């Protein structure tokens, strides 16, 4: 067993144990129905979290994802409902726009050397503001194509439904997992996250890669926005508020190091599923209020950060500071 997979194994193990505990209390949770709904209900979060994983592995952060989801949803809804365009024409268009938006942020981050945190914050304001200016209300999407896709599903044994959007999320995880771990671009992302200076000295095209990373994150934000619009059959400017934090939480819980250079796309899937598990458990319980979700996710986040710290600071942390006179 390769040592670098240990954090991933730990996360997976925790998910399995947590799921087993939930099932032991509510046997009803052990069904393909619940599993299928896991995937459907968290599809937009999962897709956005894949983008966040790339950004975080490269040592950056993207706070604009939630706003991009809102903006894409609104633009999609306007183009389909008000202008009467076919969704299949609209989708590539909004995805391209989203990718351009991200590329612009990446360019500012790299060429103006501004911390990603503040650039994507500005991007968040901009996207959320544009969406709110376009419309204040939720725009319903009532197109035959939408009705078809949202009711499309595979029947799983046991009555569960693997919906089209759930399947899309799994496909995104698979595809981008391969990109991260099996392509040159993926290696560049890890290299920049490990140490941007040495990456540049080794010949990694840091500028192009940084722009591509943020374009990819916003592209997936756009895809997540489309999924969200399919999920709710509407475009709403305040959709997915705070999703950036949930996706960062999913990435961290999935074992990706927030300082960059280390992480797994698959781990993020587990992180998303663990959050879904917490929500489902609270729904099953019925007596716990929804705010426990936030406390539980905050607690999980803390535990995993602590774990990462213990594992990684032993090796290469700021040891000189620890021994300093304090």
């Amino acid at each position, binding site marked *: 067993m390769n040592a670098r997979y240990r954090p991933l194994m730990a996360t997976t193990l925790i998910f399995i144990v947590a799921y087993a505990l939930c099932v032991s209390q509510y046997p009803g949770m052990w069904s393909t129905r619940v599993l299928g709904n896991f995937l459907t209900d968290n599809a937009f979060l999962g897709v956005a979290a894949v983008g966040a994983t790339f950004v975080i592995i490269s040592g950056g*952060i993207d706070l604009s994802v939630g706003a991009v989801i809102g903006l894409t949803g609104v633009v999609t809804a306007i183009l389909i409902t008000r202008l009467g365009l076919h969704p299949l024409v609209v989708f590539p268009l909004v995805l391209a726009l989203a990718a351009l938006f991200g590329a612009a942020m990446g360019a*500012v981050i*790299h060429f*103006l*050397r*501004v*911390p990603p*945190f*503040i*650039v994507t*914050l*500005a*991007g*968040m*304001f*901009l996207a*959320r*503001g*544009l969406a*709110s*200016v376009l419309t*204040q209300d939720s725009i319903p999407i009532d197109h035959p194509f939408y009705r078809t896709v949202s009711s499309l599903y595979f029947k799983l044994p046991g009555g569960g439904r693997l919906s089209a959007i759930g399947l899309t999320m799994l496909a995104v995880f698979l595809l981008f997992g391969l990109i991260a771990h099996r392509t040159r671009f993926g290696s560049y992302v890890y290299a920049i996250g490990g*140490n*941007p*200076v040495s*990456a*540049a*000295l080794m010949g990694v095209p*840091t*500028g192009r890669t940084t722009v591509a990373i943020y374009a990819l994150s916003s592209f997936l934000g756009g895809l997540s926005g489309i999924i969200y619009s399919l999920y709710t059959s509407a475009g709403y400017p305040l959709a997915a508020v705070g999703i950036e*934090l949930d996706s*960062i*939480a999913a990435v*961290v819980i999935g074992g990706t190091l*927030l*300082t960059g250079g280390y992480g797994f796309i698959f781990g993020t899937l587990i992180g998303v599923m663990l959050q879904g598990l917490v929500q489902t458990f609270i729904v099953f319980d019925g007596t716990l*209020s929804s*705010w*426990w*979700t*936030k*406390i539980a*996710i*905050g*607690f999980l*986040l*803390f535990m995993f*950060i*602590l774990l990462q*710290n213990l594992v990684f*600071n032993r090796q290469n*942390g*700021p040891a*000189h*500071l*620890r021994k*300093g*006179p*304090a």
Partner: protein
Amino acid sequence: MKAQSLSSFFSHQVIALAGVLLINWMVFPGFFDVTWKDGRLFGSLIDVINRGAPVAILAIGMTPIIATRGVDLSVGAVMAVAGAVAATFTVAGHPLVVTLAAALAVAIACGLWNGLLIAFLGIQPFVATLVLMVAGRGLAQLITEGSIVTFSDPALIFIGTGSLLGLPMPAVIALLLMVGAHFFVRRTAMGLFIEAIGTNRSAATYTGLRSRSLILAIYAFGGLCAGIAGVIAAADIRGADANNAGLWLELDAILAVVIGGTSLLGGRFSIPLSVLGAVIIQAMNTGILVSGFPPEFNLIVKAGVIMIILILQSARLGEIAGAIRSLKPFGRKMP
């Protein structure tokens, strides 16, 4: 040299504020009208400092944090927690002193928690404060049991809506806090310590600075400021709304500090300029409202302002770094 750079910065923010106020005056000629009624001042200008006070208070706490290369994302959530504590205590019939003490103590505890994670466990500030940002609103809802707790204690409401010497109470509190904090950091060595940690924490530690305790204290102060802002926000609406109190204000506070000229990369800082930054943001907000534009434009304008500031700062950076960049193609994490 420091005084010089500070004064040149000062003029930037003052010009910016004057510009914003001028635009406000052009689109809404009655902007500078201030009237005296019922023992207090009224007018758009007064409204700017009144509404801007919570962000200004947050910015006061955020300035030393950003100056030490940190950031506190949890201030909005801590505001909600402090508001929830204040509301439940006053509803339970506790006197004002106990209510305030409890709310502020909880807020300081939140700040200490952040500081503990950052200074002693060595977790990145961004991540450490994210925990409380996510969990904080849940805690606040736990305290209020999911409902909006309303109260009618006149003493507590006075903090949010009362007035002192004609000025609204929140503005008075913000002003006192700013003056107190500014003199504390500039009349003692505290300011230098903060700048030393922000410039190079290891070096500061080796020169004998107790950087851990200092960082802990700085985050506790940030928590205290968030607590004060939270009590004001709750007193203003006479209730604690765990979901919406202080929502997005952490971003406004960071923006105010950045407008105030404190670099996100640590080092130089100024508390009064951060407060001025908060006033500029509020002047833009109020300007958009009084000129009849929908409030949604606010976000776009804010995004535009951030970008302009970043590009201006970067152009200045670029001159110095131009030569270095030609040698090393990537300079984001230059040692």
